[in-house]
């Protein structure tokens, strides 16, 4: 029980520190923090699928794009209320995830990875080609950050990045809390069971395929949320969001931070965004640098940052005693 309190206290401290960022840091740092939270939402949802259930998807960029284009099209054609827009984006992502997931969860392992990859690229080529609706390779432009209002009351402007930051922080906190609850729910435990031994779970009465579909859709919803928020941040939606190299980002981030904890993908997101910025400042070749880091992690530190750190801390007292 005390560990639970300690985690809650740590989470509260982090939340407080995050609240202080726009007041203490400059514009660029605030922007970076927003990007980290967006990737964090994307990755923390994604890791429910990869870390918790053991399914490797290479197509979640499609749901990210569905969120972005859902919000964008809703904003351009219906209403520019950001809350309704985010809801529309998430709804679009969920619908797409249901459709794609239904076809993909029949398979596991390599087949699953390839299928999700292929369907992700299908969305990419659709968005790329349907120029009349999506703006094609120029992206969907004209997305505005209108003030947040609930039933016309309590208008809160989010036009500046320092204001929008809190809008993102709200959804970020909500996402992390939701992911935490899912991980520790009976549903989440059943997912771990499926990861460890799908057949045994099936014998124990878990409807494996339906659970896989459910977590696929849930992680798609997180991706859609992140995508719709990015559309608001950048005021556009781009086909690249659905590209498979973008789908690989949450995989890399989860791996970088560690698959087996809630904090893993979040730590990974922070490192990923920071590293990209730092490497890009010195050289254009950030892909090379990241590829090498990835190689090192896979060859030597498969627990990621959090896994390696916690292993270190667990080992240290044992050595003292010995």
């Amino acid at each position, binding site marked *: 029980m005390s560990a639970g309190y300690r985690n809650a206290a740590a989470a509260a401290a982090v939340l407080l520190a995050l609240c202080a960022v726009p007041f203490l840091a400059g514009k660029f740092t605030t922007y970076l923090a927003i990007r980290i939270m967006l990737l964090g939402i994307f990755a923390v949802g994604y890791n429910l699928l*990869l870390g918790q259930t053991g399914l*490797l998807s*290479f197509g979640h960029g499609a749901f990210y794009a569905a969120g972005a284009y859902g919000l964008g099209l809703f904003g351009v054609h219906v209403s520019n209320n950001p809350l309704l827009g985010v809801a529309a984006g998430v709804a679009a992502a969920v619908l797409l995830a249901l459709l794609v997931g239904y*076809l993909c969860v*029949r*398979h596991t*392992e*390599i*087949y699953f*990875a*390839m*299928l999700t*990859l*292929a*369907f992700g*690229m*299908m969305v990419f*080529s*659709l968005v790329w*080609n*349907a*120029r009349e609706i999506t703006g094609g390779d120029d992206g969907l432009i004209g997305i505005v950050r209108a003030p947040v209002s609930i039933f016309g009351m309590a208008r809160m402007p989010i036009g500046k990045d320092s204001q929008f930051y809190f809008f993102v922080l709200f959804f970020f906190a909500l996402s992390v809390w939701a992911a935490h609850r899912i991980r520790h729910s009976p549903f989440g435990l059943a997912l771990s069971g499926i990861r460890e031994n799908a057949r045994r779970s099936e014998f124990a009465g878990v409807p494996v395929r339906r659970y896989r579909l459910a977590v696929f859709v849930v992680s798609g919803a997180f991706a859609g949320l992140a995508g719709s928020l990015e559309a608001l941040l950048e005021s556009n939606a781009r086909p690249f969001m659905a590209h*498979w*190299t973008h789908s*690989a980002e949450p*995989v*890399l981030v989860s*791996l970088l931070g560690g698959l087996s904890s809630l904090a893993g993908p979040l730590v990974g997101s922070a490192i990923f965004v920071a590293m990209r910025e730092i490497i890009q400042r010195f050289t*254009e*070749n950030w*892909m*090379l640098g*990241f*590829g*090498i880091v*990835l*190689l090192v992690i*896979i*060859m030597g530190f*498969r627990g990621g940052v959090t896994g390696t750190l916690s292993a270190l801390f667990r080992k240290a007292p044992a050595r003292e005693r010995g």
Partner: protein
Amino acid sequence: MQSLVHVCLAGLSNGMFIWLVASGLTLIFGVLGVLNFAHGSFYMLGAYCCFTVLSHLGAGYWAGLLLGPLAVCAAGYVVERFFLRHVYRIALPYQLLLTFAFVLIFDNLVKIVWGGGALSPPQLTFLGGSIPILGRKYPVYNLFIIAMGPAVALGLHLLLERTWYGKIIRAASSDREMSSAIGVRVPTLFTGVFVFGTWLGALGGGLAVPYVGLLTPGMGETIIIEAFIVAVIGGLGSLKGAFVGALVIGVMSAFGTRFFPTFDMFLIFILMAGVLLVRPQGLFGATR
């Protein structure tokens, strides 16, 4: 009718490239059990190395086609011998991500060495003309490509089914432990197969140099997706499936480009979804 024939010819030559890439991919998957994301990068490296031999060393196209892919084999050797070999036993995501790391590295290396812009190779003199087919000019080189595909397929078939090496490769792919127990040096064999698969992909890249006209650092990323789709439709690990799948995809995308230009890729994905719903193991895959 005439235009239909031309669309079919364009589809066949497209399909042959996909087949050359998919054959290496399928061979590596069938034997090593690893799905190699970096295979598209080998295709790209093959094209760039061939280009360099052609334009800088002043050699002819045949020399480029011979030397370029051989140079890429060195990259394939390094990837398997020093990295992939150590991850056969660990979870699948790590294997896939290891090959993905090489996609990042190779794409970036190509940008460093050859620059980020598109390169256009010199005009071919040999096989460079065109002959009239049903009233329209058709490049001889495309016919050469259409012939190369089945030639490679036949070669692979003979290698795997009729030679001593083929027998060993088949044995090792069906039971690693047993083959190792009867004295097959499985790790060496795996390295050999991986390098051979690399060569096939790079050969596809080398052949693509006069065909695609422009070389760009992203050219591997597109073809690897098509090769994956082909592998899924044909049945993962089945060379016969990859051949048929590549033909189907090539011809279908040519028809798509001709008649539904907005949704050309979309048709292929619909086909893939359809195959998966009806025959999840692919056209020639074994039932699991």
